[in-house]
């Protein structure tokens, strides 16, 4: 036969068609399998949050986790606590995050409680760290120590140079250079600023009160007020930047030698810069590690009055003066502001997402707190937070108890495990003539070298580091007992507990299933339709000319 006939169903075409069918099948069955994963009659609607940059690193990590594991879409904009409270009040966000409650006492700002019904829920603890950039003879200093009084004087413009005698008293082992101190503060409304100003007002009222007239702020109740907007004396060498990333980014600039800022510990870890060890009530200089923060917050007074609008908010007065040598003085909690009534754009479906997200981070999420540079919440706040979560309309959070919550602070007897196991500070961290050489914060692995540390305290650092850990931390197997000295529980390799403990079987969600089925359908159509509808297909339906003759001849013969 002269006509070249390509087979209608070639190997390639059949393969493509089968692949298409397989994709359709898996898409359809995958979607069918995914459907029961959603709550009956309700779906997890995307929610939007706004607020604190202080706790943003933890929130963003949790948000990534729940998206990867459950496909709950949560958008969080790091805009500062003041804007977070404002956005929540205006109804433009579904939840807010702030370090301070609405209408905090003795404040300069008019921060009115919203008409929207809400509840506070603690989300994570952490230390407001003093991250700095200082070099001596071209070598970075990583073991700076500062007393509260020195910090207050730095941030009120009283101490302006690093070689000030008071800074030298704190750092006997450092030969500090005669360069100006550049205090870097937040230019936007910030919860970290508010926390620092509360601390300044309570602990260093004299310095803070003297600062107010210089910047033209009126006194509130006879003292300089609590503020979210740090006031700056023009031309004083202060630098103001917006957002935690802004201030931390400025300090981490190579040319910003002499800069110091207050920012959450995680930002120092992320940018690889050290933080100052702060003198606590027991006479030790401590770093805002997860353990030290947990110990410090044992002294925090939480408002336990469920009827109060300030229920669960913190009073940190006793933390500032806590007599435990492991305390970090500027420890605090961050809060989520939860809506407790439907309205505006807040629906039951959003409530479901919010409540489940909250239930996730109160338990599993707290595991990653330490790695991220925060400190996990203790059991009393987790339980109170879980109660607050149940007020979110539309939510059906899974409330977990001590045994299955996986929170690292939980212990069977109800005490704070993390604080119990916290190592005691080394002898060289005690106020006095000695000073540890070990690095801090993000520069943990960079000890301050002999070039910088030439004072009498330098020699005592190695070996002494773990010496004082004889307290409750003794049983900790990770405690390095080697001669290195710099290896302690904090520097031991950390394992990131990034995945939640109780994930439902990761089912394919609806959208990928549809896409898969659609793609399969396309493939099948691409391979199957041309042979059926195409010209070649139609012509092949016609009788073959040669066969036709034969047929007719056959027919003829038959007839």
């Amino acid at each position, binding site marked *: 036969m002269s006509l070249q006939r390509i087979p209608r169903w070639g190997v390639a075409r059949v393969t493509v068609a089968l692949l298409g069918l397989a994709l359709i099948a898996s898409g359809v069955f995958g979607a069918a399998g995914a459907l029961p994963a959603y709550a009956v009659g309700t779906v997890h609607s995307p929610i939007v949050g706004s607020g604190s940059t202080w706790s943003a690193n933890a929130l963003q990590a949790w948000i990534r986790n729940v998206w990867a594991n459950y496909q709950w879409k949560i958008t969080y904009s790091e805009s500062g606590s003041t804007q977070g409270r*404002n956005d929540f009040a205006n109804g433009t966000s579904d939840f807010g995050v702030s370090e301070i409650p609405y209408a905090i006492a003795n404040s300069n700002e*008019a921060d009115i409680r919203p008409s929207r019904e809400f509840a506070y829920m603690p989300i994570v603890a952490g230390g407001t760290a003093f991250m700095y950039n200082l070099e001596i003879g071209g070598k970075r200093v990583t073991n700076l120590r500062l007393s509260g009084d020195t910090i207050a004087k730095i941030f009120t413009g009283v101490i302006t140079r690093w070689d000030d005698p008071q800074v030298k008293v704190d750092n006997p082992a450092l030969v500090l250079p*005669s360069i100006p101190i*550049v205090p870097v503060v937040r230019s936007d409304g910030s919860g970290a600023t508010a926390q620092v100003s509360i601390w300044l007002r309570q602990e260093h009222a004299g310095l803070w009160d003297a600062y107010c007239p210089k910047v*033209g702020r009126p006194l509130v109740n006879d003292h300089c007020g609590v503020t979210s907007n740090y006031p*700056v004396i023009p031309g004083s060498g202060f630098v103001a930047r917006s957002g935690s990333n802004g201030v931390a980014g400025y300090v981490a600039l190579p040319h910003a030698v002499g800069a110091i800022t207050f920012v959450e510990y995680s930002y120092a870890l992320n940018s690889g810069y050290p933080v100052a060890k702060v003198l606590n009530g027991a006479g030790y200089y401590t770093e805002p590690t997860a353990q030290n923060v947990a110990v410090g917050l044992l002294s925090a007074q939480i408002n336990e009055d469920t009827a109060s609008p300030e229920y669960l908010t913190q009073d940190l007065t006793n933390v500032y003066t806590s007599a435990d040598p492991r305390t970090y003085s500027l420890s605090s909690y961050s809060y989520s502001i939860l809506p407790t009534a439907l309205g505006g754009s807040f629906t039951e479906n959003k409530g479901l997402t919010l409540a489940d997200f909250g239930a996730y981070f109160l338990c599993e999420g707290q595991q990653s707190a330490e790695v991220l540079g925060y400190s996990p919440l203790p059991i009393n706040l987790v339980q109170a937070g879980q109660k607050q979560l149940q007020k979110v309309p539309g939510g059906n959070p899974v409330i977990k108890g001590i045994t299955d919550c996986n929170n690292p602070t939980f212990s069977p007897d109800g005490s704070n495990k993390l604080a119990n196991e916290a190592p005691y500070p080394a002898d060289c961290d005690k106020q006095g003539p000695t000073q540890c050489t070990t690095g801090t914060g993000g520069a943990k692995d960079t000890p301050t070298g002999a070039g910088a540390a030439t004072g009498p305290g330098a020699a005592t650092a190695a070996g002494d580091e773990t010496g004082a850990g004889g307290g409750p931390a003794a049983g900790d197997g990770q405690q390095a007992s080697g001669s290195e000295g710099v290896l302690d529980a904090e520097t031991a390799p950390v394992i990131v507990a990034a995945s939640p403990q109780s994930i439902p079987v990761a089912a394919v969600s609806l959208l990928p299933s549809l896409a898969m089925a659609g793609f399969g359908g396309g493939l099948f159509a691409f391979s199957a339709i041309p042979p059926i509808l195409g010209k070649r297909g139609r012509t092949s339906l016609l009788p073959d000319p040669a066969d036709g003759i034969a047929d007719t001849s056959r027919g003829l013969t038959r007839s």
Partner: protein
Amino acid sequence: MSGPNILEALDVSDGSRRQDDSPRQLSTVRGPSDTVFRVAAHGGGVLVLSIMTLVGLFLAVRGAEAIASAGPSFLTEQDWEPNSGRFGIAAVLFGTVAIALIAIVVALPLAVGTATYISEYAPLGLRPLLVGIVDLMAAIPSVVYGLWGMFWLEGAILPVAQWISTYFGWIPIFNVPNFNPGDPLATPTVFTASAFLAGLVVAMMVAPVAASIMREVFAQAPIGEREGALALGSTKWGMIRSVVYPFGMGGMIGGAMLGLGRALGETIAVYLVISPVFVIQPHILQTGSNSISSLIALRYGEASPFELSALMAAGLVLFLITMLVNFGAGIIIQRSRSGAAS
């Protein structure tokens, strides 16, 4: 048969002409496509104007509360503490104008040079590429310039600022009070986040806009005059000076002023670079500056209703100034074009 009819018709027309001597009414019957086009064209023009007016009105209405409360001190007060009732735009307005002026002083020579090179000197094959690059520069989002200024330019420009302050510190605006050139340990941190840095970043954004306007105007310089100048023995540079620049003067001024308009309103790049201070800061190399638009970007999200009103009032001032500058630029460009054609 048709004769009398024609006469009658003539008679009638003569009679009507005698009665009133006004021109006859031309009635135009427009097709549907014409009508649609006219409505769309008129509508577009009216819409733009009304939106502009409404923006101004909106700012005025929303800002009225703050302006009424502050009174005339709104223009003279430097501090920005709306909660304490002490707020005014003196400092931010000064900062806005200072940053814009620095930007334009840097951008103008850059833009003139770029435009001259592209339109006169660049090899023909290279020209489209250069035009593309300049247009690309104009298309880069300002936040990218801001991040670049914040993380790279700041460190790179510090020695320059230090040098200027060391040798030209006797000029008041280049003086930095906290900086002692004789101190070997002096840190350059006093020069960070300054109006100078913000001005440089904004200049990078303004220059391409101004350069593309100037390039187009330079290209329109008449060929006859160019050849005339060359025939009279002028060098190429002489020809550019005597023909291209005079013909393009209007475009140069207009481009600079359009750039100034953009520089005045530049928000996010300035917001990222500066360290806001609320005082008139005449030392442009020193840390701290401010601008109206960056103040709004910084504070609007966290503002109480009254603070928002104060920000709206500041926005109104910026709106008026920018509009003045742009109208001025428009008038200059228009005049120069009619002059260049004659």
